[in-house]
């Protein structure tokens, strides 16, 4: 019992009930997934969808109940069974909820629930709706396993599981070859990262095992981690961070995320907002005690985070696909989170993860609503003037855009400013990091408002047929949008800076991060000044977007085809560079192996051995005539020879 309450009290009994409840949070979506998998076709699309939603909804309700009962410094743990045991090394299938997990739980199940409901409307016309909900539920299950597992191995199972589900969902419309390629890309890039993760995990286990501690429990790890030498910790954290760059789309493994747009839009929202990409941030936060011991790794993470944020923002400036802009903005925002992790501000990273989940889910679902209305069109150059046709979508989109741009008193303002402040003032931070993050904030405002103006303002550039078809989406899609828009503003109010009404967030997460959470303690006046500077560049970004795209009747992308523009439009040719440096040599080698080496050498050796044996036996097999009497003669000759041998005169 770790909650610190006396045994046999009423509270204690209540906690005991809660503990056995924990398992139902992940198991409910799994059960719905299994039912839909086997009986979904018989249930029909409608009931299967409703079942999937109900399961995630119930899971959210349980999570909320657990959240309410969770004491400030407590940990709930629910052990199901021992997975395996070898000597003193035991791994349990057991779930735990502490403050950090509780936040993740609410995000995953809450946002996941809204996305499920939205999917009811969005996938209504789709043939594969049952299959879609099976995948969606499985995704939620693995994500919950990831955040609730009380040891690193269970986390890894969830980690791999969401990778698998992302592959299934991105390639959901598998009839189109491009989609399956995008699915493969996501899976393969993730596997590269996962390889680093596995190596880190093994190194951690064996190095601790060498000290006599065989464990993967987070609690145990935290107790014993200081037995490791600094070099080992650095190696382990670097390897684990490789895994995080894959899952959370950081340089250099971010390339899969923009292509993940191939999946249905609710999937994009799920992958980008609530679940998969946050796994890397969650993992580093969960293992903060490990990362805190490796300052070199932390500074590398900070640099990579800042670089990713900046780089992805510059790409997003020129994209014309509505979802691609959002994809790069996700990469950019994840860069912010890793910047926060890198400067040791784990709480700020999780806070940004939390607020980002709301406004990014809102943006993606809003873009899905737009695409739905446009009949599948995703090119922003063919949109425009939609605000009169889709009021709810427009206003929720405006709110989410304000939030991600960081306009005061929206969620993004609080979380992004916190990260900027930490990047500046933390012991690991520097002015250079702050400057990059500051520039990125301006670009974020620019590209988001560019998108807003291109899609919703001005006059429509769609063809007449599509214009006639424009309509607001059904309530199943607009209601989640409104809830998310609400969250896009108010979710940030929990973590207000000290000069406003103070943060409840830090107190909430303090028991988890404890000493590793190094809040910046600069002068309040500096903090306010920095905040004002950020506001200036955000305002500049918005103004520039308005000047270029906001006025009515401005042509879109009026031939600004400079070199920088082309580089940005083509995403720095990263895909092409990877293609030339890695993919092509790899496929060329594989091709050579397949066409020359395998038939020539491998098959040659095997067939050669066979041919030699056959050749040698060509002589001897003539002895086997099949005639029994010949054998008898041989037998007789042998017997006589033996007889002669033994009877010979000595």
């Amino acid at each position, binding site marked *: 019992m770790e909650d610190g309450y006396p045994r046999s009290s009423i509270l204690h009994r209540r906690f005991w009930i809660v503990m056995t409840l924990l398992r139902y949070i992940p198991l409910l979506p799994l059960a719905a997934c299994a039912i839909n998998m086997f009986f979904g076709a018989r249930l029909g699309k409608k009931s299967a969808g409703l079942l999937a939603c109900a399961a995630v909804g119930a899971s959210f309700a349980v999570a909320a109940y657990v959240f309410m009962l969770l004491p400030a410094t407590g940990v709930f743990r629910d052990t199901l069974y021992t997975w395996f045991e070898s000597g003193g090394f035991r791994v349990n299938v057991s779930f735990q909820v502490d403050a950090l997990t509780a936040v993740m739980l609410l995000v995953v199940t809450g946002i996941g629930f809204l996305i499920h409901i939205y999917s009811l409307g969005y996938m209504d016309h789709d043939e594969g709706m049952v299959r879609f909900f099976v995948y969606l539920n499985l995704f939620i299950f693995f994500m919950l396993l990831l955040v609730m597992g009380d040891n690193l191995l269970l986390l890894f199972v969830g980690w791999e599981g969401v990778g698998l589900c992302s592959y299934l969902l991105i390639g959901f419309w598998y009839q189109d070859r491009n989609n399956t390629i995008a699915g493969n890309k996501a899976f393969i890039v993730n596997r590269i990262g996962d390889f680093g993760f596995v190596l880190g995990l093994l190194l951690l286990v064996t190095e601790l095992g060498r000290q006599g501690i065989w464990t993967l429990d987070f609690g145990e790890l935290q107790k014993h981690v200081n037995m490791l030498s600094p070099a080992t910790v650095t190696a382990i954290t670097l390897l684990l961070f490789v895994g995080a760059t894959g899952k959370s789309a950081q340089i250099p493994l971010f390339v899969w995320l923009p292509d993940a747009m191939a999946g249905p839009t609710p999937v994009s929202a799920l992958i980008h907002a609530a679940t998969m990409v946050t796994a890397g941030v969650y993992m580093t936060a969960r293992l903060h005690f490990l990362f805190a011991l490796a300052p070199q790794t932390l500074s590398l993470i900070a640099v990579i985070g800042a670089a990713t944020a900046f780089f992805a923002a510059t790409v997003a400036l020129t994209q014309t696909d509505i979802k691609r802009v959002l994809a790069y903005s996700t990469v950019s925002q994840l860069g912010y989170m890793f910047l926060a992790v890198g400067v040791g501000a784990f709480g700020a990273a999780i806070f940004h993860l939390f607020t980002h989940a709301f406004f990014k889910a809102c943006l993606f679902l809003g873009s899905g609503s737009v695409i739905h209305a446009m009949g599948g069109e995703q090119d922003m150059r063919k949109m425009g003037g939609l605000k009169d046709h889709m009021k709810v979508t427009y206003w929720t989109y405006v709110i989410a855009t304000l939030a991600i741009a960081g306009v005061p008193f929206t969620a993004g303002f609080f979380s992004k400013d916190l990260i900027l402040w930490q990047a500046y003032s933390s012991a690991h931070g520097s002015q250079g990091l702050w400057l990059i993050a500051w520039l990125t904030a301006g670009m974020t405002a620019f590209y988001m408002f560019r998108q807003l103006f291109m899609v919703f303002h001005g006059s429509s550039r769609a063809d007449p047929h599509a214009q006639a078809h424009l309509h607001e989406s059904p309530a199943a899609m607009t209601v989640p949008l409104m809830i998310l828009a609400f969250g896009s503003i108010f979710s940030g109010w929990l973590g207000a800076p000290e000069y406003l009404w103070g943060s409840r967030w830090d107190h909430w997460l303090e028991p988890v991060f404890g000493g590793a959470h190094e809040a910046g303690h600069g002068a309040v006046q500096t903090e306010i000044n920095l905040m004002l500077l950020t506001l200036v560049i955000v305002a500049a970004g918005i103004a520039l977007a308005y000047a270029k795209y906001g006025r009515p009747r401005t042509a879109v992308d009026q031939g600004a085809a400079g070199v920088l523009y082309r580089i940005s439009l083509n995403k720095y040719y990263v895909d092409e560079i990877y293609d030339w440096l890695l993919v092509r040599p790899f496929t060329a080698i594989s091709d050579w192996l397949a066409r020359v080496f395998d038939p020539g050498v491998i098959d040659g050796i095997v067939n050669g051995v066979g041919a030699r044996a056959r050749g040698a036996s060509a002589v001897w*097999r003539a002895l*086997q*005539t*099949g*005639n*029994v*009497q010949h054998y*008898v*003669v041989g037998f007789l000759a042998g017997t006589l020879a033996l007889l002669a041998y033994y009877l010979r005169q000595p």
Partner: protein
Amino acid sequence: MVPLNHYLILSAAIFAIGVVGVVIRRNLIVVLMSIELMLNAVNLTFIAFSRFLGSMEGQVIVFFVMAVAAAEAVVGLAIIISVFRHRQSLDPQEMQLLKW
């Protein structure tokens, strides 16, 4: 009294006839009979030694051999009959399918 060597020579001769029969005859029934001939040649040796050494063990073994020979004759004849039904022939030269 007939000396032991005479029995042994007779036994060897019968055995040799049996061996030659197994090797050269072209009829499976005769081959089977030749095998019986070899067995009985051996029996004769056992009996002869048993008589001359004054021990019963040789005779006991002969009973074993006769029992086994009876069983062998039953199985062998059954196989020969079914082979004949299939092929209308008992020539072992024509039965050479079991090879590479």
